[in-house]
């Protein structure tokens, strides 16, 4: 079995340790004897997104977001085809925003999103951002679990119909909002850095299972020793009083 990950704009959209997510996915596959291929693609490099099981894109500052935007837009059809082919998507922060209708940045410059989903994002000024540790509750199928991360965004994302998680502590999509991110069968979009996956191994495994589903159907993953992961998460949950 092999997990094929496409890491878009690894050199540009890489704020707040988002690269750690890739590290976690690779390691958790490796420990289970699942081969894991990570392909990095940046500006002007050609790739067929359909060939990959997981499309990953991290966050970037306004400047980077403006730089990659045209390149990303040129790939829109291919991205839609990849969705149709069953590819999974993990989109953090800027990546999440760019899949919506538009992003209005801190200088009131409007960047059109890919427009794949209905949500849109408007930035506040430079001095007001949603910053801090965040705890959420994720429900997938029959399973509900808590996850922690760190959010740091000026963007206020509105009109999200199917959020990723319920906010237990922190802001989420907007200041003091009750919901965080966006999720459907194939896509998780979220403001949660930290990075997201190291302290949330259930989420990491969910992504691995959903991604492998594209080519292998339902996969049962072998249990791993997550003592450190659980402990790190519990320390934060306890501190946040959740």
């Amino acid at each position, binding site marked *: 079995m092999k997990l094929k990950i496409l890491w878009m704009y690894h050199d540009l959209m890489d704020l707040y340790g988002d690269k750690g997510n890739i590290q976690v996915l690779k390691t958790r596959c490796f420990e289970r004897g699942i081969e894991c291929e990570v392909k990095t693609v940046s500006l002007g490099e050609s790739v067929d997104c359909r060939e990959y099981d997981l499309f990953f894109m991290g966050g970037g500052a306004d400047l980077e977001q403006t730089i990659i935007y045209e390149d990303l837009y040129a790939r829109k059809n291919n991205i839609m085809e990849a969705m149709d082919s069953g590819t999974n998507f993990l989109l953090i922060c800027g990546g999440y925003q760019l899949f919506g209708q538009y992003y209005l940045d801190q200088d009131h410059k409007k960047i059109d999103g890919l427009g794949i989903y209905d949500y849109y994002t408007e930035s506040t000024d430079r001095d007001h951002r949603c910053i*801090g540790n965040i705890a959420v509750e994720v429900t997938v199928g029959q399973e509900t679990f808590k996850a922690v991360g760190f959010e740091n965004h000026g963007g206020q994302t509105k009109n999200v119909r199917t959020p990723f998680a319920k906010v237990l502590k922190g802001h989420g999509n907007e200041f003091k909002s009750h919901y965080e991110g966006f999720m459907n069968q194939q896509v998780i979009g979220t403001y949660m*850095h930290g990075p997201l996956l190291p302290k949330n191994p259930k989420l990491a495994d969910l992504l691995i299972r959903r991604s492998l589903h594209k080519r292998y159907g339902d996969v049962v993953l072998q249990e791993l020793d997550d003592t*450190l992961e659980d*402990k790190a998460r519990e320390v934060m949950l306890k501190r946040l009083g959740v």
Partner: protein
Amino acid sequence: MDIRLSIVKLAHKILASQGRGGSFPGQLALMMDKDFIRRFTMPEQVILVTGTNGKTTTSNLIAESLRKAGLTVLNNHRGDNLNVGIAALLATGSDSSYHIQADAAVIEVDELTVYRQFDALKPTGLVVTNFFRDQLDRAGEMETIIRKIMEVTENFTGDLYLNGDDPNVLRIADNAKKARIHLFSMAKLKDSMITTDEASEGKFCPRCGKPLHYDYFQYSHIGRFLCPYDGFGSITPEILVKDVSYTNQSFEAEGRVFHSYINAVYAIYNCAAVLCVMKNLGLDLSCADDVFRHYQLKEGRNETFALSQPCVINLFKNPTGANEVMKDILSRPGRKNLCIVLNDNDQDGHDVSWIWDAHFERLNDPEVNEILCTGQRAYDMALRLKYEGLKDRIKVIESTEEAVHYLNTANLNSYVMATYTALHSTRALLRKEAGK
């Protein structure tokens, strides 16, 4: 005579007589008078020092070099670089009518505070060392800091001393049309790198947004860059360092040899900044060399404690700093234990994700025996190492006191890396442990 100034000076005097410093006098000053910092008649030379790394050392080296050249200098040598620290510094350095009693003030200013206090401090010069990712949760984004500094220097008519090898710093020169620009730079060295995995910033030309081309990197994204489209990065430095010798701990500039206070490329950049200031002020560069030769690093910077085997402690606060400290640790021969103290208080930054941007995979070295993880985010640190295949060498010890004791009993050379708020408490524990 202003009663508020007298109260602040008195508060400082009482605390100092009890051997206490602290931020209280500065807090008091700003509470009574929000324009407190603005009221002072500043000396002839007011040099502010800001940037991500090297602020404290560089401002101390400048202050000491000016003193060596015969000037009286006011300097926040302990690195109290926020509003309250600066207010307290000015109060203690002035007479009762807000006149600073010195020939020069050399003030380290936090990179977020600098744009707020720039006009109030009436600077004649500004030194900018570098910009790296640092405590981003506090800063928002590095881009914000740079833009704000560019705003306050837009009409500045004084001297800008800038690191010409950092595109994020050189940007300031582009925008400051009225200032006198003085650049320091470093020529290609034997161990300059052609490619790097350390550079997260400085990839794009700030003028045209196209990728910058680098001839070589010295460390992180610091090096010789050029935009092939518009020439950004084509510079004429006033201080050009060349021929660095790590054997003699020396470097060449201005046609002579200087000693460096430590054997590291980032330290030589700090020296270059000092020489740039000295040269422009027409002062004898030998004074700076004398200071470099005898400078004692601040406590907690490469400081050694006599445990059963020597234990060296260093501050680490951002990916670039962590990478440089690790390079130094791994360059030292012999088996060793490491201890990483990771806190996430205000001054450390609440967001510890930056540890994922640092190259901890380098600790996969056969000479690294055990890595103790402690501090408020001990488990986050342990996870970071676990995902670099270091699982078998990690040991989480929540209590830093116990971790320090463990280092002592292990009877191996050891190296401690501590974040800002953990540094002094860990030093105290090491001192206690060394005295046992």
